[in-house]
């Protein structure tokens, strides 16, 4: 299979997944409001101490982005049934193209998710101006990418299982811990005006490692490849 065909398949799969999300609205109209509600619940649980909320605001954003964002990555409407998977196989689809295409759509949706939740966090928690905040945009992108990589990978491991909806978060949450830690440390380093280079490098390494695993395991994961 030549490279052009691979990327064309990636494009078609990403397009199809976007179209489906546009119709079903699972991420946009269900998960995003759910995440916003979660951001509202936390101040009610820990008390409305303004300096405290300003302090924990970015961290709460990251935790909610991780816990709810993963729901975007393995949303039900992007899960293929067995006949659909078999059809894709017989159309000559490269499993790696499927992984990349699906992951691309999830990253895009996660960016939208973050773009909505970030202002909600600022309004509710009033974290103040963080020096060098434009760096956080890069962090948000790397977080979205990493989360969609882990989520897509875990989603293909749990595809078609009855316990899929409860099992996938259990797999994704511990595996994406370095993403959360590194993102949170960038916020802290920016506040203390320290270097963020190591943490950005860690985020990038993490993304790269999972991307490589995802592409390499795509074919062995395909049931019919035996």
């Amino acid at each position, binding site marked *: 299979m030549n490279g052009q065909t691979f990327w064309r398949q990636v494009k078609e799969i990403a397009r199809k997944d976007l179209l489906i999300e546009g119709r079903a609205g699972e991420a946009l109209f269900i998960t995003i409001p759910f995440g916003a509600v979660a951001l509202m619940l936390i101040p009610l649980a820990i008390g409305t101490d303004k300096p405290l909320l300003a302090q924990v605001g970015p961290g709460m954003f990251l935790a909610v982005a991780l816990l709810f964002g993963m729901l975007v990555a393995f949303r039900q409407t992007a899960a293929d049934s067995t006949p659909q998977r078999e059809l894709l196989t017989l159309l000559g689809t490269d499993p790696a193209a499927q992984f990349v295409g699906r992951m691309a759509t999830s990253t895009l949706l996660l960016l939208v998710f973050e773009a909505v939740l970030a202002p909600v966090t600022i309004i509710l928690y009033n974290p103040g101006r963080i020096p060098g905040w434009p760096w956080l945009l890069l962090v948000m992108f790397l977080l979205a990418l990493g989360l969609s990589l882990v989520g897509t990978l875990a989603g293909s*491991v749990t595809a078609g299982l009855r*316990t899929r909806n409860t*099992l996938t978060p259990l797999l994704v949450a*511990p*595996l994406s811990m370095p993403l959360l830690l590194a993102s949170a440390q960038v916020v802290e380093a920016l506040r203390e005006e320290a270097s963020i280079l190591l*943490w950005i490098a*860690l985020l990038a390494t993490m993304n790269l490692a999972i991307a490589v695993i995802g592409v390499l395991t795509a074919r062995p994961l395909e049931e019919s490849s*035996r």
Partner: protein
Amino acid sequence: MRKRSLIVINLLAVLAIGTGFTFAVLAPSERTQGDFAKIMFVHVPSAWLAFLAFGVTLVGGVVWLVKKSPLADRIAASSAEVGVFFTGLALVTGMIWGYPVWGTFWDWGDARMMSTAIMFFVYVGYLALRRSIPDPETRARRSAVLGIIAFVQVPLVYFSVTLFRTLHQGTTVVRPDAPIDPEFLRALMINLGAFTLVYLAFTGWRTRLARMEDELEEAEAVSDFEIAGSGITAPRLGEVTGDV
């Protein structure tokens, strides 16, 4: 593994644990921590076995993907189960050790403790995945892949937490790996060996049990098949309703 060799390993493990325990009791008290440090004889071997066990799970998964041998999958599964047990033991003993020494059960700054906890949950997820997949082939395939992801993740977790820790120095009171007395070290090594034998015994028995489970499952499947094969015959509704 043969039943006879398993029994031999069992006996050796029991002997070794007894020896290890004796050496642990006789080892001198540590200078700053006193007898508290002796929990190290359980804690350190447990943590070491956790890594060994998950390494074996990784290898078993890779071997399955290449050779599709059911034995490799059974070993991978058994080793993960034993590994989760030892990871839990390492965490609990770590917390028990931490309380008198650090003054807290949990130290957020300790890279090993944090990464061990994450590893525990990753492999709890691995076991949950196995339980969720009824078809043996699909189960072996997917858990092999998850075993690979999980094992690649462990160093990343460890590195990130170490990095986290080095930037937040000064939270812990005593480093658990302060210079070790040679007598202490000898006792630790004996316990490491003893625990490794325990690991072999546990994993061996568990693998054997897994084979028996598979055989039972197959026997049931074959008997179902024979009923179906000799023909799902025409339904005899008349006779059934006649009985009612």
